[in-house]
C-alpha cells in the first residue's frame, strides 16, 4: 500500500482544512477558558440534526446544517442563562445542557429510526477515508469545498475582529469599557464554533473536532506569549497533526506488522496529543524539562556561592593561617552529594578556588578572584542582616537564616542601596566586618586577596 496522491492527498488536505479551521477558533476558546464549549456544542447539535431531518425528511446538507448551528447557538445561550440565573458553575451548566440536548437527539433519532438511516455514530467518528471516493464523480470532493469555505470564514472572522477578539479574550471588562460588545463577541465566537463543528462532523467526526479545537491552542500557548504567534503556531500544530496523523494511520500499522489501517481522524487526535506532550516536556519557557534544568542550574549556583562564602568565613576565622579547608569538611558543610562535588570542580575550573595538599589530604582555599566573588556574597549577607536588624524586630539569632536565603538574590545595585540606607555600616549585628568589593589584587601569598 503506497502513497497515492489521488486518495491520500485528498485525505490529508481535508485533514489540514478541518484541523486549521478548528485550531484557529480554538485559540480563543483556550484563552477564555471555554475549551469544553466545543465538546458541549458538538454533542448538543444532535437534536438539531434530527429535527432538521424529521422536518424536511431528507438528508440534504443545508437544513441539517442550519438546524445543527441553531442548536449549537442555543447550547451557548442556555449555558449562559443557567450560569447567570441559576448561579450554577459554568462547566456544570455546560454539562447539564449538552447531556440533555444529546438525550433529546437520541430519542428523536430513535423515534425516526423507522424512516431513516441516521447513524449517530457517523457524527462521532466521521468518515474521512470515504471522502476521496466522492472525488471520482467530481474533480474536487464536496467536503474539501465546504471545509475551505469554513476555513475562509474563520480566517475572515479572526482577521476582521482580531483586536476585538483579543481584548475580549484577555479582559472582557476592558473590552466593554472600550466600547466593544464583549458578549456579542462571545456569541459570535460560539456561532462560528458551531458552524465549524457541524461542517467538520461529516469529514472528521466530533472527537477530532474537540481535539483540534483544544489541543493546538494549548500547545501553542505553551510555546509563546503573543497571540499572533500563538495562532500561527497552533495552525502549524494542526497541519503537522493532519499530515503525520494520516501517514501514521495509513502506514503505521504496517510498520508493526499489522495488515490494517487505523482511523485517520482518531490518529490525528493522537498525534496532536503527542505534540502537546512534547510541548509540555520541552517548551523553552513553560516546559517541565526547562524548569528542571533551570532549577538544577539555580541550585548548582547557590551551592557554588555557599562554598565561596564558607571558605571566606573560614579564612576570616583563621586569620591568615590555615585558611585552606579540608575537602570533606567543605562537602559536608554544603550538604554533600554530587551537586557539591560538581560545584567544587566548577569553582576550581573557574579559578575561584585552588586545591592544595596538606598532610596528605586535599584542601581548598580561595584565590584572589574567589575572594572578590565571596566578598560580594558575604557583603550581601551581612548587609541584609543589618537591614533586618534595623527594620524588623527580630532576635539576633534569627537574622542569619533569612539572610542565608536572600544573599543569592541581592544584586550589586541593591547592595549599594542597602549601604546607603544603613549609612554605610562597617559591621553587621553580630560584630563581623562587612567586606567591601575591591579590585582583587593578584594572589601573591597565603594572604593574597584579603579585602
Amino acid at each position, binding site marked *: 500500500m503506497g502513497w497515492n496522491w489521488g486518495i491520500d492527498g485528498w485525505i490529508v488536505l481535508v485533514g489540514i482544512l478541518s484541523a486549521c479551521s478548528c485550531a484557529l477558533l480554538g485559540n480563543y476558546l483556550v484563552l477564555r477558558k*471555554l475549551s469544553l464549549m466545543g465538546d458541549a456544542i458538538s454533542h448538543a447539535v444532535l437534536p438539531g440534526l434530527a429535527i432538521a431531518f424529521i422536518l424536511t425528511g431528507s438528508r440534504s446538507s443545508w437544513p441539517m446544517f442550519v438546524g445543527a448551528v441553531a442548536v449549537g447557538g442555543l447550547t451557548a445561550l442556555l449555558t449562559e442563562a443557567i450560569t447567570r440565573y*441559576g448561579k450554577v458553575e459554568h462547566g456544570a451548566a455546560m454539562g447539564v445542557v449538552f447531556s*440533555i440536548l444529546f*438525550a433529546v437527539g437520541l430519542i428523536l433519532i*430513535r423515534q425516526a429510526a423507522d424512516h431513516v438511516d441516521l447513524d449517530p455514530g457517523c457524527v462521532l467518528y466521521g468518515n474521512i477515508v470515504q471522502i476521496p471516493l466522492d472525488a471520482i464523480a467530481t474533480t474536487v470532493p464536496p467536503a474539501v469545498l465546504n471545509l475551505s469555505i469554513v476555513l475562509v470564514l474563520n480566517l475572515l472572522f479572526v482577521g476582521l475582529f482580531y483586536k476585538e477578539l483579543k481584548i475580549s479574550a484577555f479582559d472582557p471588562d476592558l473590552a466593554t469599557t472600550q466600547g466593544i460588545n464583549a458578549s456579542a463577541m462571545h456569541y459570535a465566537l460560539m456561532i462560528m464554533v458551531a458552524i465549524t463543528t457541524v461542517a467538520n462532523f461529516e469529514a472528521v467526526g466530533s472527537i477530532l473536532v474537540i481535539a483540534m479545537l483544544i489541543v493546538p491552542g*494549548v500547545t501553542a500557548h505553551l510555546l509563546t506569549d503573543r497571540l499572533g504567534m500563538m495562532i500561527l503556531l497552533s495552525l502549524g500544530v494542526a497541519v503537522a497533526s493532519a499530515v503525520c496523523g494520516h501517514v501514521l494511520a495509513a502506514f503505521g500499522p504496517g510498520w508493526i506488522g499489522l495488515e490494517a489501517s487505523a482511523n485517520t481522524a*482518531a490518529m490525528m487526535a493522537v498525534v496532536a*496529543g503527542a505534540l502537546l506532550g512534547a510541548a509540555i516536556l520541552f517548551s523553552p519557557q513553560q516546559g*517541565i524539562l526547562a524548569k528542571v534544568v533551570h532549577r538544577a542550574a539555580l541550585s548548582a549556583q547557590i551551592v557554588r556561592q555557599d562554598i565561596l562564602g564558607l571558605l571566606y568565613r573560614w579564612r576570616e576565622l583563621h586569620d591568615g593561617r590555615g585558611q585552606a579547608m579540608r575537602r570533606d569538611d567543605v562537602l559536608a558543610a554544603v550538604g554533600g552529594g554530587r551537586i557539591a562535588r560538581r560545584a567544587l570542580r566548577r569553582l576550581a575550573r573557574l579559578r575561584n578556588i585552588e586545591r592544595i595538599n596538606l598532610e596528605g589530604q586535599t584542601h581548598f582555599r580561595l584565590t584572589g578572584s574567589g575572594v572578590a566573588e565571596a566578598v560580594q556574597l558575604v557583603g550581601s549577607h551581612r548587609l541584609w542582616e543589618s537591614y533586618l536588624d534595623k527594620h524588623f524586630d527580630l532576635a539576633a539569632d534569627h537574622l542569619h537564616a533569612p539572610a542565608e536565603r536572600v544573599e543569592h538574590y541581592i544584586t550589586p545595585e541593591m547592595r549599594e542601596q542597602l549601604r546607603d540606607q544603613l549609612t554605610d555600616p562597617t559591621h553587621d549585628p553580630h560584630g563581623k566586618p562587612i567586606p567591601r568589593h575591591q579590585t582583587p589584587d593578584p594572589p601573591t601569598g597565603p594572604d593574597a586577596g584579603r579585602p
Partner: protein
Amino acid sequence: MRCRTLKKRPRNGAAGNDGPGRVLTAPVSWLVVGIALAFCFSSDVFGAGWVLGQQSQTATGVVRPGPAELIRALSLRDYNTRIVVLGTTLLGAAAGVIGTFAYLRKRALLGDALSHATLPGIAIAFMLSSQKHLGLLLLGATIAGVLGVIVVLGMRMVPRIKEDAAIGVVLSVFFGAGMVLFSLIQQMRTGDEAGLQSFIYGQAAAMLGRDAMLIATVAVIVVLGSALFFKEFRLVCFDRSYAGAQGWAVNWIDLLMMCLVVLITVVGLQAVGLILVVALLIIPAAAARFWTDRLTSMVLLAGVFGAASCYVGATLSALMPRLPTGAVIVIAAGVVFAISMLVSPHRGLLASMVRQWSLARRVARQHLLRAMAEFEEQRGAGTVVRFDELLRKRTWRANRLNRLIRRAGGGGLVVAEPDSSFRLTSHGRDEARRILRNHRLWEMYLIKYADIAPSHVDRDADEVEHILPPALVTELEQAIAKAGRIPPSPHPLETVV
C-alpha cells in the same frame, strides 16, 4: 509525609466527635443502609443470569401501555424490568452522591473526560480477551479512566494549562487513541464492534442480573467511600488550601474522590452510555444545589434525585416503544433540574423574581410616600396634593402612578380627595416621614463625610433610603441631626410647583 497524614484521619475524627463531621456522616450511612436494604429485598431476583434484553422491550413496546401495564411496570412485576429499574436506580443514587462532590469541586465535566478516556482501556481489554469478557472490559475501562484522571491532575503542574483545557485534552486524545485501537480491531476481527456501540450509547435494556449485581456492589462501595471520607471530601471541596495547611493529603483525597467517580462512570457506561453518564454525575447534584446550602442534605437530595430520575426513566422506557433508556433517564433528570431551578425557595428563578418584584413595589411605594411628605413639608401637614403635581415630581408614568396610589390607598397610607387629589393618612404620614428622614440623613452624611456636593446627593440617597437599617439610622441621627427631627433638605426641591 503525605501518606502519614492521610492515616491521621481516625484520630481527628475521634477528636471532633461532637463536631459537624461526625454528625453529618450519619445520614449518609443511613443512605447506605437504605440502599443495602432495597438490594436485600430484591436479591431473590438476582439469581440466574438470563439474557432478557431486547425481545421483552419490543414485546412491551408494541402497543401504548394501559393502566394495568403501567402498574405492572411501576411495581416491578417483570423480572426484566425489575433488574433494569433497580440497577439503574442504584446507579443513579450512587452517581448523585459522588457527583455532588465532583460538582462542588468544580470538576463536573471531569466525568465527561474520563468516560471518554475509558475507551482505550476497553479496546486493549478487547484485544487481550479472546471473547468479550465483561469483567476484563470494565477493568480495562477503570484503569484507563484512572489514568485519565491522573493525567488531568498531573497537567496542573504546568501553570499555563487550565483545568478545562486539561479535561478537553484528555477527553479527545484518549478517545482518539481508543478509536485508533478499535479501528484496528474492527479490521482484524469482524463483527465485534457491536460491543463498542453499547458502550457509547448504553444498553440498559439488555442489563442482566449480574450487571445489576455489579452496579449494586459499586454503588455500595461508592456510597460507603463517600460516607467514610465525608469530612475529607468536604474539606477538599470547600477549601483545598486550608485542608492542605491542616496537613491533609489533599492530592490523595482528590485522587480518591475522582477514583470513585471513575468507578461510577465505568459501571454507568453500560447502562446509559459514555456520553450520558456525565449527566448522572452532574444533573442531580446541580439540581440538589438549588434546594440547600448544607452538604449533607445536598448529598442526600442528589442521591434521591438521581435514583428518582433513573427509576422514572427506566420504567418509562420499559413501557414505551423505542425509547432509549439512557436518554429517557437523562430527560427525567433534566426535568428535575428544570423544576429545581424554577421553584426552589431560595435560589429558584421564581423565588428571586418574586423577591425582586416585591422589592420594586416597596421602593415605588416609598417614593410615593416621600413625594407626599415633601409636599407636606412645604405646605403643612394634611395638605392635599393633586395628581398632576405628583406626576411632575418624579419621572413616573401616569398609569403606574395611578396604580401606585390605588395600592397605597388599599394599604391605608393615602386617601383620595375630590378633583383627583390625595392626602396622607396619619399612618401614611408616619411612614412617609420615616422615609424622608432616612433620605435626608443619608444626604447629610454624604455631604459631611463623603464630601459630595449638595446638588449631587439626591440621586445617591434615593437608592439608599429604602435599605437603611434602623440601627444605622440611629447612628446617623447621633452623628448628624437631632433625634426625631427631619433635617431640612440640603438642596432646593425644585420640582415642586
